[in-house]
């Protein structure tokens, strides 16, 4: 049947005209390059903001030399810039990219524009995993991301199963299941917190709300690698996601190996959320706000939505964290408070619009 409609083709006026607005590889490349450029500029600019003022030109020179030259910065300034601020900004970018790419994929897979790692309880699952790691394997650093990933994966499957009914998973049912899992895990978190001493409780609460200040070099490296590889794998499955977005049955009929793709997405998205939570706690609503804005401006084709959401998510959290650490300097807000401040109203709007 390769000759279908050869006859009909002749009578089709201007097929090229159909192509307008369709997402192509070229369009994706241009959009992602622009976002990457903006992200790099944002990283450079936000590294100049902070409670300790740094000389602009020397700072840019030091970053551009990749730390090879101090460019006239004092040793203190040099340490603030390259050992405190820059790692934190890079972590913000990795966390933002991870959460936004995971959010966009959850939304397509679960056919639900409201699906988001934080609201689905996936972030809390990862948080419980991280806590278990802290309490039981505190000395082994890698136990945190590993347990966070396990927690994220477990809660993803739990919410997915809870949301299934005979009529399939409705958006409301899914969010409700997410809320149930979230509150259950929250009480587990509260229970463990009460066993801690007062000073630890404070830093712990801060971490729970999303705190980018307390990471280590190896966790930062892990978060960055997972963000890049995870986004690549999710993007590689984006065409299947396009069909899953229309329903699992449709996708199956059209040739998608539904259970295989679903497993890949759950696995990779959980890794992304797990590595973010292990290094910075639960930063909420990034996975909701960013994919929504990306879809508004670039359309719903996941081949562009997923990678563009990753870049835009990085940008969003880098800026949000800069606000969080400068707005009441020298004190800091958890970055999760800023993202929730923007995200919660948007969630209400999306819910209303239904």
């Amino acid at each position, binding site marked *: 049947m*390769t000759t279908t409609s050869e006859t009909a083709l002749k009578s089709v006026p201007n097929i090229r005209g159909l192509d307008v607005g369709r997402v192509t590889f070229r369009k994706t490349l241009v959009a992602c390059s622009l976002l990457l450029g903006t992200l790099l500029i944002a990283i450079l600019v936000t590294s100049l903001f902070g409670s300790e003022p740094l000389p602009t030109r020397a700072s840019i020179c030091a970053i551009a030399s990749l730390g090879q030259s101090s460019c006239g910065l004092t040793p203190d300034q040099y340490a603030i810039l390259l050992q405190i601020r820059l790692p934190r900004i890079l972590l913000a970018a990795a966390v933002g990219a991870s959460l936004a790419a995971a959010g966009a994929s959850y939304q397509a897979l679960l056919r639900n524009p409201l699906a988001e790692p934080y609201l689905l309880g996936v972030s809390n699952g990862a948080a419980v995993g991280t806590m278990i790691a802290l309490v039981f394997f505190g000395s082994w650093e890698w136990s945190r991301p590993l347990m966070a990933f396990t927690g994220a994966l477990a809660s993803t499957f739990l919410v997915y199963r809870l949301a299934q009914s005979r009529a399939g998973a409705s958006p409301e049912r899914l969010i409700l299941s997410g809320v149930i899992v979230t509150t259950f895990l929250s009480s587990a978190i509260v229970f463990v917190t009460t066993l801690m001493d007062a000073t630890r409780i404070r830093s712990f609460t801060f971490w729970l709300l999303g705190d980018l200040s307390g990471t280590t070099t190896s966790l930062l490296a892990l978060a960055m690698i997972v963000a890049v590889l995870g986004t690549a794998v999710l993007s590689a499955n984006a065409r299947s996601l396009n069909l899953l977005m229309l329903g699992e049955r449709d996708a199956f009929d059209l040739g998608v190996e539904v259970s295989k793709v679903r497993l890949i997405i759950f696995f990779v998205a959980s890794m992304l959320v797990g590595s973010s939570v292990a290094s910075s706690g639960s930063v909420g609503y990034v996975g909701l706000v960013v994919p929504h804005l990306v879809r508004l401006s670039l359309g719903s084709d996941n081949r562009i939505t997923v990678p563009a959401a990753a870049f835009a998510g990085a940008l969003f959290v880098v800026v949000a964290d800069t606000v969080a650490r400068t707005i009441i300097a020298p004190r800091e807000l958890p970055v999760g408070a800023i993202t929730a401040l923007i995200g919660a109203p948007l969630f209400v709007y999306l819910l209303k619009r239904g």
Partner: protein
Amino acid sequence: MLQANNITIKYGERLAVAAVSLRIQPGEIIAILGPNGAGKSTLLRALNGGIRPTTGEVLLDGQPLTQYPRRVVSRRIAVVAQEGDVRFPVTVLEFVLGGRYASGSTGAWGWETEQDIRVAGSVLHETELSELSGRLMNELSGGERQRAVLARALATEASVLLLDEPTANLDLEHQAAILALVRGRSELHKVAAVVVTHDLNLAAEFSHQVLLMKHGRGLAFGAPAEVLTPELLKELFNVQILVDAHPVTGVPRITPVHEAHR
């Protein structure tokens, strides 16, 4: 080419399809008729592997369906089902291009080729959707959406079409147009079609064979004139039915006679 061998499908204790066999030849249009809950749609879903029979098997070119990779099956068998709600802003063109997923030589990441766009363009034209190609799916009327679903199935260039009530949302003009389209594919390209429908007269007019189903079982199978008799239809629907010849086409014309008028 597609064949169901004595398939039985159980949902728990409930028997949805009981020992039904069906042989689908190239170019043949088969209508499945029966009351609600007779197992028509379940049988249709089994024919493309969407539901696995509890016993029996479905063969594609002599091989069990389960032995083919999913993509290969989808390249050969396309489904037109009642479409669920589209919750994301997807354009009609994007929706129809979904039908090219299985035919693409590249992986899932693949981008559509010129050929894909051409095929989509021609099926949009055939289903009279060219003008709407840039519109969003959830802005369309029920009938337009139903045509988009058909366009997507045609875009697969599959040699078997499975249609589940394809004309349910359509006005008279578009009902005829869609069935003419399916008929045209069957005559020109030897595409086979299995149509589940409640419209007895459309079945009489457009199908080569009719399968009557009740309580999961095949009640009768044969040409419309043999199967669409008052006796069999009364048994099927528990309603008095008048069958005469269509004044124009001569195919069986079915008129239910309701209690009040008897």
